[in-house]
C-alpha cells in the first residue's frame, strides 16, 4: 500500500539516525518480512522522503567502521509521522471492524 513503507521508515528513524541496511533489517524484523520483500525496494522510498525533506542524509561511519549513508528524521518528518500514525491507526481499526474477528485457525 502506498505510504506504508514511508511510515515504517520514519518510525524506524525515531530511535536515531540509521543507514539503509539497518532500516531494512529493522522493518523486516518488526513486520515479520511482510512489508519489505527486497532491500532494494527501500531506496526509492528513501529517495522520495529525502526529496520531501522529511528525512535528511549524510555519509558517516558505522559501528564496525564501514562507510554508510545515515538518514535522520527532520522536524517535518516527525510531524508527518505523528499525523500518519494516527491515520493508520484509525484506518487499521476501521478495517478490523469491517473484516470482523479473525477466523479460527483450523
Amino acid at each position, binding site marked *: 500500500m502506498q505510504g506504508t513503507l514511508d511510515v515504517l521508515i520514519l518510525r524506524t528513524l525515531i530511535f536515531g539516525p540509521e543507514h539503509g541496511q539497518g532500516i531494512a533489517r529493522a522493518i523486516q524484523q518488526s513486520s515479520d518480512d511482510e512489508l519489505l520483500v527486497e532491500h532494494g525496494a527501500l531506496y526509492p522510498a528513501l529517495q522520495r522522503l529525502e526529496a520531501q525533506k522529511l528525512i535528511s542524509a549524510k555519509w558517516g561511519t558505522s559501528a564496525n567502521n564501514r*562507510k554508510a549513508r545515515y538518514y535522520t528524521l527532520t522536524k517535518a518528518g516527525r510531524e508527518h509521522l505523528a499525523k500518519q500514525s494516527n491515520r493508520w491507526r484509525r484506518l487499521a481499526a476501521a478495517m478490523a471492524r469491517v473484516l470482523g474477528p479473525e477466523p479460527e485457525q483450523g
Partner: protein
Amino acid sequence: MTNWRPRSDEDFSAEVNAHLELETARLVEEGMAPEAARAAARKAFGNVARAQERFHESTRWVWVEQFLQDLRYAARGLRKSPSFVATAVLTLGVALGLLTVAFTVFNAYVLRPFAVHDPSRLYRLGWQSPDAAGRIFAWREYDELQSRTDLFDAVVAHDMRFIHSESAGGRSLTATYVSANYFQALRPRLLMGRGLGPADAGQPVAVISEQAWRRMLDADPAALGRTIDFDGSPVTIVGVLRQEFVGIDDFPRDIWVPARPEAAEGTEVVTRLRADVTPERVEAMLASFVARKAPPKVSPKDVRAMLVPNATANALSTDLLAALSPIFAAFALVLVTACFNLSNVMLARAVARQREIAVRLSLGASRPRIVRQLLTEGLLIAALGGAAAVLLAAFLMPAGIALLFRTLPPSLAALVRVVPMPIDYRVVGFAFAGVAAATIAFALVPALQASRPSLTDVLHGQRAGTRSASRMRSFLVVAQVAVSMLLVVTALVLARNFAAVGAIDLGYRTSGVYSVNVRGGHDELIRTAADALSADSRVAEIAVTSGNPLFVTHTLAAAPDGTDRGEVPVRYSFVSPEYFTVLQIPVREGRAFDAKEAATSARVAVISEATARAFWPGANPIGQTIRIAQPTNSRMDEIEGYTRVTVVGTVRDVVTGMMVNGPDRGHIYFPASAVHRRASALLLRPQATGDFRPDMAFATLRRAGLDPAIFEVFPMGEMRDAQMYPLKAGAWIGGLLGGVALALSVTGLYGVLAYMLTQRTREIGIRMALGATARGIIDLVVRQCLRLAGVGAIAGLVAAAVAMRALSSVITLEAVSLLDLTPFAAALVVVFSAVALAAYQPARRATRVDPAETLRADA
C-alpha cells in the same frame, strides 16, 4: 548533499555497495561463510541494476539527457540529408525572417522602452473633449504643472520644430526645445560631453544625436565646442548622445536646445509620476487644469485630462493591436504556408523512414519516445531556421531602411527619421517563440502519423498508414494553395488600389508647381515673400492661398441663401486670382476673381461645380447668394465678417486633402491677397525655360531680408507622391508576401506530385502496359493537380473575399473599392499558372515510366 544539485549516480552506487557490505558483514557475524553471505545479501537486496536505473530515472535531469540523446540522434539523421535540411532551414528562415522584420519594427515603435532612467512611470499629458483633442500646453501652464510635486517627480517640456541648418547642407533638422530639467530627469546616456541644465537657459548651446554627429560632423571625436548653424545663428555643441536615445516620442530628433519660454508656441509635456500616485488619480486631479483648453462650443467640464503612457514611442493598446493585426496576419500567413510546406516534407520523410521507426518500436521504444524523437528533429530544424531568420532580419532591417529613404520623395526623405530598430532580446525571443510554434505546427502531425505504423505490415515491407498520410499531404497542399491565394489576392488588391489612386485626376496640376509654406506663426511674412518671389525673373506666376490643397483642408457651414435648407459642411479656401491659373483649374461658368476683389477681400465666391449642383440643382448659380452660418462643431471654422457671399463663377471639381477620400463634395473659394490674414502659403510656377530649384527660392528670400529657415519649399508633385507612398509601400510588401507564399506552395505542390508519382509508378506502369498513352498519363497527373489546386483556390478566394470585406470596413477608401472582381480573377490566373508550372515536370517524368521495368520490379 546540497539541495540545488541532484545526487550523482556514483553516490547512489556507493550507498548500495555500503548496504551490501553491511548486510554481508552482518550475515557473517551470524555465522555464514563470507561467499554465501555475499550471495545472500545480494539476494535480499534484489535487482541492483534495476535499483540504480530507477534512481537514475528519478533524478530530474533524465529528460535533459534523453533530450540530448534525441538531439544527437536527430543531428546524425539530418547530416545524412543535407539538401532536405538546407531547404527546410531556408523555407523557415525566409518566412520567419519576414515576420521577425515586422516584429522588429513593432518592437522599436511600441515595445522598446526609451533609453532613459525608469521609463515605466513616464506619462504624456494631453486633453480630450467630445470633438477635439490636443497635447500642447502653454509655458505658464507648464510652470504650474511643475509646482505639483504632490503628483509628479518631474515634469519635462519638449517641443519639436523643424529648423534649417547650413551645417546640414541647408537641409532641415528636427530640433527639440527642452525644459531645464529634461536631461536631469531622463538621464539619457551621452557619448561625450554633458546634457543641458538650468545654467544653459538662453545660451546658444546644443546637444546632438549620434546620427547628426555622424552626418554633420563626420563623427569628429573633438566635436565638443564646435559650433553649428541653427536657423541662421551659431550654437555650440556641449554634448553628443548615444545612438540609442533619440528623444521621447516616435519622431527622432537631431538636436536638443534650451527652451525659449518667451516664445508664443506651447510645448508638449511629459511627466514622471510619483511612485505613490496612480495615473487615474492624476487624470482626475488635472481635470480643472485642462478645462481651459475647451474649444469654442464645448463646456469646460467636458474636457478630460489624458495621461498616456510614455515609456515607449507608442503606447501598446488594444486599438493599436487591432489596427496592426491585418499586417501581422499577412506576415504570419507566410509562416503558416512555410509550416504546411515543411509538414508535408516531414510526412514524406516519415513514410520513407517507416521501417526504421518500426524497428525501433519493436525493440521496445515507447510511442511517446518516438514522437519526442521526431519532434526533436523538427525542433533542431526550426532552431536552425530561427537562427537564419534572425540573421536575415539583421540583414533586412538596414536594407529596408535604406530602401525606404531611397524610394521616398526626396523632399520627404530629408525630413523623415526612423527610431533605432535594433535586433534586441525581445526580437530574438520572438523569433524563438516562433520557432517553438513552428515546430509544433510542422512536426507534430508527421510525428504522430509516423509513430503509428502497424509493425507486422511494415516489417513485411507493406507501406501501412500511407493512405491517411497521403490524405494529410493533400490537405496540406490545399491549405497552402488557399493561403497563397489569399495573399496573392491581397497583393493584387493593394497594387490595384495604388494604381487607382495614382490615376485619380486631382483636377489641378501638381507637376512644375512649388509650394512655399511658412513655418508656424509667421504668416505675416507671406506678403514680403510673395513680393520677393514675384520680382524674381525665374518665377512665372505666384498664387496666394490659405493652404496647400494637397494637405490643408478647411471646412465651414454653408447653405444656399433664401431657402430653408440647413447648412452643410463645405470645404473652403482663400485664394488669389492666380490660384486658378497656376493650378490650371478651369472656370466653367462666370469668371474667376479680379485683382480688385482680391485686394478688398470682396464678399464674392467662386464655387466648385459640385457645390453648384448641390445648392441650385438645374439652376444658374451665378449671382446667387450663399449663406455662411456659425459652425456647429469644432471641425468647422467660423470666418469672422462673412455671412453672405455672391457667387461670381464656378470651377471644375478638385480633390483636396487626402486623395483616397475622393473629390470634394463641395468647395467654396473666397478672394484674398497676400495681405489677407488667412494667407499662409504660396504656390509658385517657374518660367518654363529656366531650371528652377528650391534653393534658388531660398536665395531670393534671403536677399529680401527674410530668414529662409522659416520657409519650406516643396515640389507639389513630390507632395502628391508622399501621399501615395503608404499605398505604394503596402502594394510592395503585399507583393513580396504573396510572392513568397506562392513560391512556397508551388514547391510544396511539386513535392507532393513528385512523391505521389513515385508511389504510383507501378500503377502507371500497368496502365501503360495496358495501352494508356503518355497523354492519358499527363491527364492523370493534371487532374490530380487541378483537384488539389482547385479546392485550395476556392477556399482561398472565399477567405480573401471575407478578409477584403473586413478590411474595407476598417480602411475607408472612397476612391476605390476593395471588393473588386479584377484582382480576384487575376489572382486565379496567377495561382493556376504557378500550379501548372509545378505540375509540368512531374507529369513529364511520369510519361517516361518503363512498364517492363516496373512490372519486373514487382515480380
